[in-house]
């Protein structure tokens, strides 16, 4: 029963929340879309937190995504021990980077009165969920070798089954407790995502790369574009 709730119901609740709240918030509350950068109040320590945290997290995200999209290729890659070792080491390094960054960010935030005053409860929630995810992730990587090998035929088929609206929870319920916490934590993260400052990821300014440099906005149409003028 609990397993059904956590592995078959929670995913859909999380994804629906993610979609609906993000869209609603983008349309109705655009003012709240911000990375809420705190560099202005503290810059020196931020470097040692923010940079490893973001780089690590981006690498981890794409690592999980590649495993999800191309499980058989990942399995093939892992066929040669050296390559498995490279993949695992990269994942571990990314995880450690993220951990170091996150710890740095938390220490920084606790240590500065200016930042404490500027910390919301959702910030604390984000820190908690991310910390659980990173600790359990590292634990899996170190304690249940080799994660990249068994991820592709346990969690990945489970994720695909969720995507097909026919969740096969038996693929994950027998996994070690740490791995199950990691999966439940991931769904919690997805569900909370759009309530937090993490939404800045959804508005990452990629179009800037091909946008014209200057931006001029006209309040009214310029008359020469109108017919008869």
């Amino acid at each position, binding site marked *: 029963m609990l397993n059904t709730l956590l592995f078959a119901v929670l995913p859909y609740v999380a994804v629906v929340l993610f979609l609906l709240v993000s869209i609603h918030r983008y349309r109705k509350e655009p*003012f709240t879309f911000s990375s809420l*950068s705190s*560099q202005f109040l503290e810059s020196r320590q931020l470097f040692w937190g923010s940079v490893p945290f973001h780089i690590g997290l981006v690498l981890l995200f794409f690592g999980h995504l590649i495993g999800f999209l191309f499980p058989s290729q990942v399995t093939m890659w892992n066929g040669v021990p050296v390559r498995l070792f490279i993949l695992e080491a990269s994942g571990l390094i990314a995880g450690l980077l993220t951990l170091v960054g996150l710890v740095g960010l938390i220490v920084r935030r606790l240590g500065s009165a*200016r930042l404490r005053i500027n910390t919301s409860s959702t910030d604390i929630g984000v820190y908690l969920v991310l910390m659980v995810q990173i600790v359990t992730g590292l634990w899996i990587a170190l304690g249940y070798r080799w994660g990249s090998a068994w991820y592709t035929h346990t969690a990945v088929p489970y994720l695909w089954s969720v995507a097909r609206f026919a969740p096969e929870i038996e693929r994950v319920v027998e996994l070690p407790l740490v791995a199950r916490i990691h999966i439940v934590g991931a769904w919690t993260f997805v569900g909370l995502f759009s309530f937090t400052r993490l939404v800045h990821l959804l508005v990452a*300014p990629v179009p800037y790369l091909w946008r014209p440099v*200057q931006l*001029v906005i006209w309040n*009214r*149409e310029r008359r020469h574009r109108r017919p008869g003028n």
Partner: protein
Amino acid sequence: MDVRAQVSMVFHLDKCIGCHTCSVACKNVWTDRRGAEYMWWNNVETKPGTGYPTGWEDQSKYKGGFEKKEDGLELRAVGKVRGALTVFHNPNFPVIDDYYEPFTFDYQNLFDAKEGADQPIARPVSMITGKPMEIESGPNWDDDLAGSKHYAAHDPNLANVSAEEREALFDIERLVFFYLPRICNHCLNPSCVAACPSGALYKRGEDGIVLLNQERCRAWRFCVTACPYKKTYFNWSTGKSEKCILCYPRLESGQAPACFHSCVGRIRYLGMVLYDADRIEQVAQTEDHDLVDAQRSLILDPNDPKVIADAKRNGISDDVIASAQRSPVYRYVIEWGLALPLHAEHRTLPMLFYVPPLLPVMAQKSENGHYDTTHDDFLGSIDQYRLPLQYMASMFGAGNEAPVRYALRKQLAVRYYRRAVTTGDIPQEQADRLLKEAGCTPEEADRIYHLTALAPFDDRFVIPPMHREEAIEMLDEPLEAKGFAGMGIRKRPERGA
């Protein structure tokens, strides 16, 4: 020729008395809010000095503005590639301590303190944390050369001034300074707009006011780095950048911006100018030496029939063109050549122009150590002036002395001329000769005198019709937009989750 209109400004520094009324007017209207306490969209600095934020002119630290590269202009620190590399931590981003920690005082203690041997005091309290704090800096900390050894001596504009001149400057440091009021320059080639990855910053087409859409800003913070004048500010509470909006709601209802309206010294002028947008890119790449003249060449003669025809073709209405013809800015910047852009070398083409101050030497220390106030000549010559011309040139001439010299000479000639006219203690021939040397006619001198010294309200502020009604007309149902002032957000700007 792509003729566009720009609300443009002139600040006459010879008239500024450094009273900060403009700053306070702006503060009361716009930045008296949480997260914005430290912001002074309008501030007044003492020069020489390091200003606000401290040392803002030092681009080796803040990396603002554009650099001229072989294949065109490039933002100094941010932009497409370097911005992507520094998005997680921006090394050239000023922090609050570069400005100052905003403070108030615990006045309640004056009423509530228990009876004791000492008088109760109102301790300073941080407006960020609410905790007691030591005040270490403020928005005009080096006002009137306070602490000049720490501040004025580090003015970046002194870099090109010779050691002798520097020594002479600080020998009489208690005597020489002037004020530099600063607001957003509403540049023609704004580096903040070029740096904003979200597209939140934009230039308004009709009047050229540079605005920042609070609903699109995502706190990537590149605008703050990119602006060489440090006139975009980051609100630490809402997580959004903010900047001077040139009081556009006031302009749209025919009023001068708050800082202009409140100016006690009447140093501020505002008016429309027409310019050629096709040439912006080319002009912004001119060599430093010719940059000031090139920038002024962008501004078009509003009485030229060809310009008028092109302006009309671009949808600029007749009353806006008429307003540009009356513009005091056009007089100062183009007709008289008296007003110059501040730090044009950053290539943002600022549209706020400054009339450089004369600062004549009225007294000198004689050999016996007394101050000698009698002068052979009424105001002396420009080269004896207390702030070296090279200092002025690094601020107002992009390093070139010629336009600064021209502006100062003409001002001086007008003063001699008016002195001759009103008091008669200067020979008319001398006044005429100086006018001629400065390239000025008596008629022009009278006009300069009139707009500088008399300057009625409606001559200083020629506010163009902003035609908000046309923006409303674009909507299907004009009545639905009734009551909208174009202010954008109509709810409290609360910090996002």
